């Protein structure tokens, strides 16, 4: 077998291990799913009428369309906290020391975590998406290609955030610290264009909402599913995703290369 085949085999072994963990102990993943679902229901059924009126919409159903893209991306932000926690937990276990003394592909441990977390994110997005459709979300004239692009964007965004979360997990001494340092990933959507348009925010606050990864990704997703203007946001979202993925990968890999304590 070539070294590439062996590397792929090690990565898939590690992925199987992580998926086995997730299947045996689904409580963490399910807990993390609660936040986006609760926020979706809260904003639609409690604040929906007011929000819709404030944005010049007719009723709550307009606001559902507005809020769902942001909630889907928030679902990713929430799910990857699980990646940070499980990486930090894993790194404190003796089994990782064993992996390090075995002739396996060095990155396979991290790649197993990342692929596992991306798969979990995609599954979570599908579940939250199903809730959104159940309460009345419908796309507006989205073509098959646009749906595909929307899925691609969600997967890429999940990959980028997962690598950052894995870096946070690697840098944290324990699960609690990892959970704390990954908290911004679920808070960032709250200060993006997920729930209110940027134009409706106070002027001093707009740059904070504008120059962060969630806003361009949300605007792109809206454009793809609801036919709104995408403009530069597509490229911005792509650049954010690639930048974060590379940064997170470099960070995690250099942490993994360090001698364990």
């Amino acid at each position, binding site marked *: *077998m070539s070294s590439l085949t*062996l590397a792929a*085999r*090690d990565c898939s*072994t590690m992925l*199987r*291990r992580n998926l*086995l*963990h997730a299947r*045996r*102990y689904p409580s963490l993943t399910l807990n993390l799913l609660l936040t986006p679902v609760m926020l979706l229901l809260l904003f639609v059924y409690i604040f929906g009428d007011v929000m819709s009126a404030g944005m010049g919409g007719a009723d709550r159903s307009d606001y559902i369309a507005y809020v769902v893209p942001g909630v889907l991306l928030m679902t990713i932000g929430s799910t990857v906290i699980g990646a940070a926690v499980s990486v930090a937990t894993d790194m404190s*276990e*003796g*089994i990782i*020391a*064993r*992996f*390090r*003394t*075995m*002739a*396996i592909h060095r990155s396979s441990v991290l790649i197993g975590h990342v692929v596992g977390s991306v798969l979990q994110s995609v599954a979570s997005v599908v579940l939250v998406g199903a809730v959104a459709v159940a309460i009345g979300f419908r796309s507006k004239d989205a073509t098959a290609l646009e749906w595909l692009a929307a899925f691609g964007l969600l997967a890429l965004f999940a990959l980028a955030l997962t690598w950052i979360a894995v870096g946070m997990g690697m840098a944290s001494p324990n699960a609690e610290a990892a959970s704390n340092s990954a908290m911004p990933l679920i808070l960032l959507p709250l200060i993006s264009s997920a729930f209110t348009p940027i134009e409706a925010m106070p002027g001093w606050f707009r740059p904070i909402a504008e120059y962060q990864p969630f806003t361009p990704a949300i605007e792109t997703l809206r454009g793809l599913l609801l036919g709104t203007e995408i403009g530069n946001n597509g490229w911005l979202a792509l650049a954010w995703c690639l930048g974060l993925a590379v940064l997170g990968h470099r960070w995690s890999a250099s942490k993994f290369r360090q*001698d*364990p304590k």
Partner: protein
Amino acid sequence: MTEPAIAARGLRKSYGDKKVLDGIDLAVPAGTVFSLLGPNGAGKTTAVKILSTLVTADAGELRVAGHDLAADPQAVRAAIGVTGQFSAVDGLITGEENMLLMADLHHLSRKEGRRVTGELLERFDLVEAAKKPAATYSGGMKRRLDIAMTLVGGPRVIFLDEPTTGLDPRSRHNMWQIIRELVTGGVTVFLTTQYLEEADQLADRIAVLDGGRIAAEGTAEELKRLVPGGHVRLRFTDPAAYRAAALALPGATRDDESLSLQVPSDGSQRDLRSVLDRLDSAGIEADELTVHTPDLDDVFFALTGSAAAIPAQPKENVR
């Protein structure tokens, strides 16, 4: 094969200002058991971590299983198995899944992986527990699973960092038996331990590590010869007999309070007989006679820094 399985020259490692290993030389011939003995904090675990590629050394020429540790760590990893001090099993999955995980990572075929897993679970008496999560195992079971996982790839050099710490006597003896079987199969074992008896039982060669340096190295017998302390102890209940014996054995050290005499002796039959003959010809009978030969405890306390802090407690072998 003339090259040793493990060779180290000038191995150094510091953490900050603390010198953990301060220039260590080791040579372990293939197919033997080498034991690194030392008090807590002597650097035993650091030595294992470095030789098993987990941690990089600051300096030193290191070769394991014929490969240079710095130049080709992956080749070293392919030849070694490591069981660290803390259990290296995945607690969230079952014992069997842990074993199959190892088989996959050693790139065994599915069939081969199942066969090896079945064999090792059987050998380590884990068949009944195989379907339970490893986190539910007792300390001894975790340790057995740990070693079984180490053996999946058929390593030629095995590092065992305090493999019997925390095990009950029966489990400890089982572990010793396992280690002996491994060596019979030609495997080289690098063992760290705090238990002198363990090193005495298993190791072909022993190095005493203290303060980051090798204080002494040799076979158990060679090390025991390094320290004096062999003697015969005679105890009396009758003060008159005690005084008579002290006269008959002029070289003895007297302890008037406990009415006992300590006669320097190498513990040999001839030496013992001459002591007894002298007592016999004086018509004295001791109430108790014990022979003390130096053991690794004496070596340990004599060679390591703890000698000053902890007084040596001689072990007496009643004969």
